[in-house]
């Protein structure tokens, strides 16, 4: 499963970069995120409650940042387990393009799911990810738009 997209953030590049690395901000922006803990400079542990069609579960995710080039690009290696619902793992490459007061953010994600998620949820995952992504950027952009 692969998908990509981009979003314009009305803030300078460094500011966006800092926000993307802030566990509190991430927790606010990820729908269903119950915990987001930074365990080392480039590692986070998260708990996210998600519903994929008939499968409802809390994922425990281990998120590792690799290939970090501040403040323009990094890759997230994510491995998540959802108990009886199965597992998901994948990576997301994120890059920021500085347009002065605005920053363009590109993301490319690929991942696989296993277990019940694949069995009964695989057709629905695209839609769920769409929703999560939209939610994330809406919330993320709001950090700046709501200030003005």
């Amino acid at each position, binding site marked *: 499963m692969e998908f990509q997209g981009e979003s314009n953030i009305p803030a300078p590049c460094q500011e966006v970069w800092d926000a993307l690395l802030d566990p509190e901000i991430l927790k606010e922006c990820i729908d269903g995120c119950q915990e987001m803990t930074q365990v080392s400079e480039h590692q986070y542990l998260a708990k996210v409650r998600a519903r994929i069609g008939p499968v409802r579960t809390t994922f425990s995710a281990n998120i590792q940042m690799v290939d970090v080039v501040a403040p323009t690009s990094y890759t997230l290696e994510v491995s998540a387990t959802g108990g*009886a619902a199965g597992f998901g793992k994948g990576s997301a490459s994120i890059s920021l393009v500085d347009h002065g007061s605005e920053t363009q953010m590109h993301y490319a994600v690929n991942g696989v799911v296993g277990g*019940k998620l*694949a*069995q009964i949820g695989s*057709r629905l995952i695209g839609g769920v990810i769409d929703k999560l992504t939209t939610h994330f950027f809406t919330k993320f952009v709001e950090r700046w738009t709501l200030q003005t």
Partner: protein
Amino acid sequence: MATETGIGASVRRTEDARFITGTGRYTDDINVPGQTYCVFVRSTHARAKIKSIDTSDALSTPGVVAAFVGADLAKDEIGDLPCGWLVKSKDGSDMIAPPHPPIATERVNYVGEPYALVIGETVQAAKDGAEAIVAEFEIQTPVMDVASATQSEQIHESVPSNRSYDWELGDKAATDAAFEDAAHVTSLDIVNNRLIPNAIEPRAALGSFDAASETYTLHTTSQNPHLERLVLAAFVNIAPEAKLHVVSPDVGGGFGSKIFVYAEETAVIWASAKVGRPVKWTADRVESFLSDAHGRDHVTHAELALSEEGDFLGLRVKTTANMGAYLSTFASSVPTYLYGTLMAGQYKTPAIYVEVQAVFTNTAPVDAYRGAGRPEATYVVERLVETAARELNTDVAELRRRNFINPEDFPYETPVALTYDTGNYAASLDKALEYANYSGFASRKARSEADGKRRGLGFSCYIEACGLAPSQVALSLGAGVGLFESAEVRVDVTGSVTVMTGAHSHGQGHETTFAQLVSDKLGIPFENVSVVHGDTRRSDYGLGTYGSRSIAVGGSAISKATDKIVTKAKKIAAHMLDSEEDQVSFDDGIFTIPDSNESLTFGEVAFSAYVPGNFPLDELEPGLSEKAFYDPANFTYPAGTHICEVEIDSETGTTSIVSFVAVDDFGNVINPMIVEGQVHGGLAQGIGQALLEHGIYDSDGQLVSGSYMDYTMPRADDLPDFVVDTTSTPCTHNPLGVKGCGEAGAIGATAAVMNAITDALGVKDLPMPATSETVWRAIQGG
């Protein structure tokens, strides 16, 4: 006796009263005091090494009674799940059966393979415990493609090239020579799609252990409880057969998938002694998809050689059969002795050569599913024959007729190890042609075309070898068990009768059919006969129900036991009438002697048998109860013609089956209504394979058609109003002249549907299932 309830009468099924009022008694309906619940923890990876399994959090979960891993079973010397049919490769070597521990120990080899079990006070507690099991895996690349499995990474240490066997049947040299002489060769590359059985009742097991008597009792959804007991005793080492009581109560459908001995009932019966309390497991639908043995899944290259005039000269078939990750109970026999042996079909093809290699992949095990090997064989032969007729611009019916084995040719020995006892293939074809209004097809096609639609007609003249038996043949070909059947007929004091059969009904209506048979033979009311099955302590022995064997083998055993009852009853009647045994006639429930108006009813003789006031006890024992074991001399060979007519919407690719005719020769028929019902069900499954059903794993080994959202079961609105009729050439070697009808629909229908669709589209082949997308793409030209 021709009565409303005798042989040949469409008696309403007596068992249906409980089935349709919700008062059936299935395994999950049975509850025993102190019962606990088992949940299996299943692999979400298709291929991985187990690095560690930690059950400690599970054990401290509230309500959890116990948690076990594969090593716990191994410590108790619980054996592997065996494959009961030894197939040999071309070079004479035995097939390779990799170790199949019930609960995975070192590695997992398909998504859904159990690696731990948790037992709880409630299902929810056990589920919570299962969630708390922490397992670490080293994930490996799975082997998913059947065609390239032999060149892929090795799944099992003991199986080089992932190949269990490389089998052959027939005369290679003669077949190759036939192809050299051929005026025309038709060839096809065929994929027989993987199917998932989907019985309406999921598998279930309830195991109990009585410490005082050291006896285990297992209630389970088995099509063959005695076989279950045999395997659990002899291979799995649970307990001796005498200390194992297996009951298959009402069972809601099997289609083959409940023949096999699975991990779950094995673990449950073992665990019941371990925890000292009864343990119950009932599969949810997701588990059924993942862990019931799947069906079909062949990749085949097939060629038919023909003469200028259209005579079949030779048939060459090379198949790779997917076994899944392990060899299930009878998996090895399905693509060999139930497949290669059927390649003659209804035809006099003089030279046939079949090669089958069985390979392992990281998927659920594949085993017998309705028809088991014979649908795959019919698909190969009937797709080839229809394609050949089109290539030669010959009438598809007449090309078949030209090559039919004729009534005067029986018994007919095929080049692939079978001897057909009887048949009249042209009779079924003619009747089917009439029902299908074959001559009117051209005008119907023109009318469809005028409406912008495409119409096609497809045939399938199938044959099957069923009534699975005979023991001597099966044993000589590698079967691990005999294939006879047993019966006991007990006459009660008041003349009513209880029949114990080793056959097992999981939807077939045995309680009605067998009662008709016995009441007809004994001339007693249908209502006075009860049929008991599915209990190893009530029936002597039994091989169960599969391979359309219940009436041909089980019914014949009952017939034989009933004959013994008549013989004994005549002795008693002779004594009562002061005559000689050979002077007594028995007809329609009445015993008479010549030159006398004295007679006795069956009831009077039965009563006397149990109230033996003045029996000469050294010559005549009291009682009236007889047993029989019946082992037939040959398979039975039901055969028939199915004709399917489709209309395809050119814009959407949607296929409608506008007519489906099935004319089958089942020999004698006991209950035509039940037979028609069996044909309907089989047709639905055969059509389902062609149009709708597909078990799909993605390249990571995840089952992506693992629920009814993605796996399309045929529904009533997908199916036409079937035209079903029979012809009859009675089986020559069983006492009832019956052949069996359970699988015919699924065996014949698939090829007929695909022949119709390819005819409508004017394409040589199309992958199954022919969904609207597949058909639409074919219309668009690729």
